[in-house]
Structures are given as structure tokens and as C-alpha cells.
């Protein structure tokens, strides 16, 4: 089974770690899009989460506060998106792009004093003897708490969207904001809550990149993870469980190409590094064409601003 010295159990374990940032960002964006808002600023919010989380963790010495700081930092950035799209009724595509451009600049401004520092480490959850089970122990019981937390969040979002009244209202707002408004739901308020949640999730994902996955701070550390998260929402056809599958798929590709690079495969490094992006494009093409068209499942009011004229 050993190809280039890569062991399957280690590969699966590191795949689960690699997929956490995109999974968190994608599940947040899924909720935002379910509410009918297209926030293309995921990359900007993730990188703000990465630096705010990193800075908080370094200053306080606590990785937990770091994740909290990352979520808050990104949610604060998403407030700008809220103001522009929900209050000033600006174009959502353009505002999302602005959020990314601004986030990239601001994060490297904040991060100037943090280059080359090591953050406090986020330890693995102690599972005791469970972690010593031969294959499963390494795959399932050797991770930090964010790995389990991110899966729990996906499960939460799934059950809330599917079974709760709040989830039903959120979907109604995303499918037809006029009808939801006529029924007396506060369209704008619900959307604001969804955008803030999406921001916090992207921030958590970003903080995971700088605190666990890399772990250090460099400019542009998220390297397009936010855009891949946006693609995963399309891949998932706006279904929470498929976000999990999509994130594992891309986590797997990322880990595999990194392992191949380290093992000195005959493919040049640059072609290996571009593979996650190429495969994302390929998957997007497959999902949006043909019969099971993902676009058919998209929330009907996606990307449209709501202005109550009466």
C-alpha cells in the first residue's frame, strides 16, 4: 500500500485536519447563501480570522481564545458587508470582492509584528486508550478539538436547516424574500444574522489555518481557501452533508499533493500545487452541467437585494 512512502492512516488523519478550514468556511457560506445572500468575501474574512486568531492566541497564550478572536475578527469584517449590502443596497458581487481585497490588505497590516512567531499549540483531545487502536486510533482519535467541532457544526447546521422552524424561515427568506416579507418575517434582520454567522465560521476556519494547519503567520496565508470554500458550496448543491464530503475531497487532494511533493515525485512541484485549484474547477464543471444541475438547487433569491417599498 505504500506509494512513495505515504501510509494510508496518516494520509486520512491529515486529510481530516486539512479539510477543517474549508469545511468551516463553506458551511458558514452555505447558511449565508441559504438566506439568499451571495458573500464573495469569504477569502477576506478567512484571512482576517487567521490574523485576528493568531494575534489573540499569541497575546493571551490560549488557543481557545485565539479561535474566539478569529471568529470575532472575521464577523466584524462581515459587518461591513452587512452595512453595504443590507443597508446601502450595494451590489453583492462587487461588495464581496471589496471585502476580499480589503481583508487581504488589512490582515497583512495587522500581521506585521507577528511574522516568524510560533503560536501556542492546540493539543489533541485526550482519548486515552482509544488513540492506541491500530488504524482507527490514528484516523479517528488523534485530533484536536476543532476537527470534531467542525463536524459537529455541520451536523448542527444540517439539523437546524432541516428540522427547526428557524431553519424553515431562513430558507423561506432565501427562496423568496418578497413572500417571506409578506408573511411578516424580518428579511433584512434574518439575513444580517446569517451573514454574521458566515463571517464567524470563515474566521474560525482562517484561525485554524494560522494556529494549527501551518502554524505561523505569513501574508496571504489562506492561499485561495476561501474561494475553494465558495466552490464547495456549489459542489454541495447547498446541502450541508455534501459540504463535509466536498471538504474531505479537497482536503484529500491537498494532502496527497503535499505528500507527493515531500516524497519527491517526478511531477514538478508547481504542477502539484496547482492541482487542488484545477480539480475544484473540474468538479464545478461536472456539478453545474448535465442533468443533476446544481444551479437548480440554488436558493431562488440568491444575490438579490431586498428593499421593502411598502
Amino acid at each position, binding site marked *: 500500500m505504500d506509494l512513495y512512502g505515504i501510509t494510508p492512516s496518516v494520509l486520512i488523519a491529515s486529510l481530516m485536519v486539512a479539510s477543517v478550514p474549508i469545511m468551516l468556511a463553506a458551511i458558514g457560506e452555505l447558511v449565508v447563501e441559504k438566506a439568499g445572500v451571495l458573500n464573495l468575501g469569504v477569502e477576506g474574512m478567512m484571512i482576517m480570522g487567521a490574523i485576528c486568531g493568531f494575534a489573540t492566541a499569541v497575546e493571551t497564550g490560549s488557543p481557545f481564545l485565539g479561535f474566539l478572536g478569529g471568529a470575532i475578527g472575521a464577523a466584524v469584517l462581515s459587518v461591513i458587508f452587512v452595512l453595504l449590502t443590507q443597508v446601502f443596497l450595494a451590489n453583492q458581487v462587487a*461588495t464581496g470582492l471589496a471585502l476580499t*481585497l*480589503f481583508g487581504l490588505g488589512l490582515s*497583512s497590516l495587522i500581521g506585521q509584528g507577528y511574522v516568524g512567531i510560533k503560536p501556542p499549540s492546540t493539543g489533541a483531545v485526550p482519548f486515552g486508550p482509544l488513540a492506541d487502536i491500530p488504524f482507527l486510533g490514528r484516523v479517528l482519535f488523534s485530533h484536536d478539538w476543532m476537527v470534531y467541532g467542525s463536524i459537529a457544526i455541520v451536523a448542527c447546521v444540517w439539523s437546524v436547516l432541516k428540522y427547526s422552524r428557524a431553519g424553515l424561515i431562513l430558507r423561506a427568506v432565501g427562496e423568496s424574500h418578497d413572500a417571506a416579507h409578506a408573511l411578516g418575517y424580518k428579511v433584512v434582520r434574518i439575513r444580517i444574522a446569517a451573514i454574521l454567522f458566515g463571517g464567524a465560521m470563515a474566521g474560525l476556519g482562517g484561525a485554524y489555518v494560522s494556529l494549527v494547519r501551518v502554524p505561523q503567520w505569513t501574508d496571504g496565508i489562506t492561499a485561495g481557501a476561501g*474561494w475553494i470554500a465558495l466552490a464547495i458550496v456549489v459542489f454541495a448543491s447547498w446541502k450541508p452533508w455534501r459540504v463535509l464530503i466536498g471538504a474531505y475531497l479537497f482536503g484529500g487532494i491537498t494532502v496527497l499533493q503535499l505528500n507527493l511533493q515531500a516524497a519527491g515525485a517526478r511531477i514538478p512541484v508547481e504542477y502539484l500545487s496547482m492541482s487542488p*485549484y484545477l480539480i475544484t474547477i473540474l468538479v464545478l464543471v461536472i456539478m453545474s452541467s448535465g442533468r443533476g*444541475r446544481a444551479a437548480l438547487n440554488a436558493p431562488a433569491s440568491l444575490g438579490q437585494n431586498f*428593499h421593502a417599498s411598502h
Partner: protein
Amino acid sequence: MLILEKRPTPSKLWAWGTPFLAVILTMIAGGLMFALLGKDPVAAIRTIFWDPLFDPNLAAYSRPQLLVKAAPLILIAIGLSLGFRAGIWNIGAEGQYIMGAVFGAAVGLAFYPADLWIIFPLMVIAGAVGGCLWAMIPAILKTRFNTNEILVSLLLVYVAENILASMSLGLLRNPEGGGFPGSRNFNSYPAAANHELIAGTGMHWGVVAAFIAVIAAYILLQRHILGFQIKLAGQAPRAARFAGVRPNKLVVLCMGMSGALAGLAGLFEVAGPAGQISIDFNVGYGFTAIIVAFLGRLNPIGILLAGLLMALTYIGGELAQFGLGLPSAAIQAFQGMLLFFLLAVDLLSNYRIRLMLFLKEAR
């Protein structure tokens, strides 16, 4: 209580007024940011907007730089504005810019060290073709498979960056460069170099191309049926379809034109100001051009002015970096802020703000 009332048609006055208002608001907010960083806000704003043009010691260096920096921004933004007008979002201009540079440089280097007049024109064509082909990927995926062009064009930027790295380390590396990454320098290869046309002005072929693009785009949008179709498709997609506009044709045309213009910008940059293909060749012009396109209100003349202003912030930012120790990232954040304020004040041209004292009467 304040109430928003949708205008039947966007206000002409505000359409011209909002960019100026946004610039002023950005200066205020940017000044606050600089003050938070512990710099004198007035001095910082003056260094960025005034010194590059009028400071007696610096102007000789920075005035020519204004054209050098504005040319790629204007070229790319003109292309982007056509697509944005039609509701086609090509945000991967950075990738098309890289590919244009790679294609053009490859053609130029293939002829090394020949001294033929045809080499530079061939490079220009190759640059445009390279950018255009790179933009065709999202365009054709959009028309054939209905794939989202925003995500594909953006993801291709990362692919292009990897190709650039691979080229400067491998195929296009200078064989006499002692193993260092990067291609031969075009400035020491006269037949392929993008020379300064008038000494001391910064005027090179890219600047000429940018001016031609502005004029061509103006004529296209004002006088040509295609320009009308682009505007129609953006403002009323359904009406456009009834009028016989084929959406797929528009996607391919708009993406192709913006890709070719971004590729040209990359070629002129690599053969002139940058001088060579290297790993860090791209500096984000493709993304800043998005801000330029919006600041110019997607209007060719507006983009010309916006490109010059944005070039000024680049040069002024560099001066502020050396003179005041302002971090370069602060300028990037400053440019991002500009786009926020632009989008926010756009409200004024589309809506009327009314002060309502008697709510009942209003309903």
C-alpha cells in the same frame, strides 16, 4: 425617520458626484487609519496625493511613473468594465495578465538574440492571445456547462501563478543567469524591449495601447451595436433576449476582450518596466483594476481618470513607505476602503433619501 425611495432612473448628477465623494470619504477614513498607525494623517495624505505630482524633488521621478503604473490598470479595467456592464464577472484578470506576459515573453525569448523589427509586434500579438486564451477557459465553461465564471476565473489566477513560477524556474529561465530564477532581461535585448518612447515621460507602448483602448471602448459603447447589446444585457437581460442578443456570444466576446487587454498589459509590463519573467512578477494590478473599473463607473473616460488616481496612490504609497515608514499593506487596505465607499455612496444615485416626519402620510 429616513426613508429610501427608488429613483425611476439613476441620477445623472450623482453618477458623476459619487466617485469624488467616495475619494474624499476614503481620504478621511484613511487618515484615521494612518493616525491609528501613529502617523500624521495630514502628512500621509499629502505624501500620497500631492507630493508625487508637485514636490520639486520627487516630481521628476514620480510623474513619469504615473503613466507607467496607470497604463496596465487602465488597460485591464477597460476590458473588465465591458464584462461588468453586461453582468459578466471576470475577476481573474490577474491570471490573464500573467499568461499574457508568459506568452509574449516566450515568443520574444524564442528569437533571442535576433535583431528583427517584427519581434516586438509578434510579442504583442502573443501577449493578447495568451490573455485571451486564458479568459476563454471560464468563458467556454460558462457557455457550455453553465459553470460560474467568477469562481473559475479566480481559481485560474492561482493556476497561472504556479505556471509563472514553473516558467521562471524552468523553461524561460535565463541560461546565463547562474541558476537564479527569472528570465533574460528584456531591457538588454533591444529588439524585444518595450522602450520609453519619449525620454523622461514614462510614455511606452503600453500607455499608447491604454489610450487607444479608452477611445475604442468609448466608441464601442456609444456608437456600436455591440456596445448597445452589452449595456442592454446588463440592465435588462430579459429584454435583451427578446431583442435577439445571444447571451453566450456576449460572454465569449466580453471575456475574450478583457482577457486580451489584460494579456497586453502583462506583455507591456514584462517587456518594459518589469524587464523579465520572475516568480514575483505580478503585483496585483489585475485586482486593483477591479477598483479602477468601479471608480470610473465602468465608463471609459472615468476609467482613464480613475486609473491615473489609483496609480497616484501606488506611487504616493511608495513615497510614504520610504518617507514616513507607512507599511505597504496600509495602501492596499486604503485602496480596498475606496471600493467600499464607492459602493456605499452609489446609493445616492439609485435612491432618494427622504426625511419622513409623518409616517402615516407617507404610506
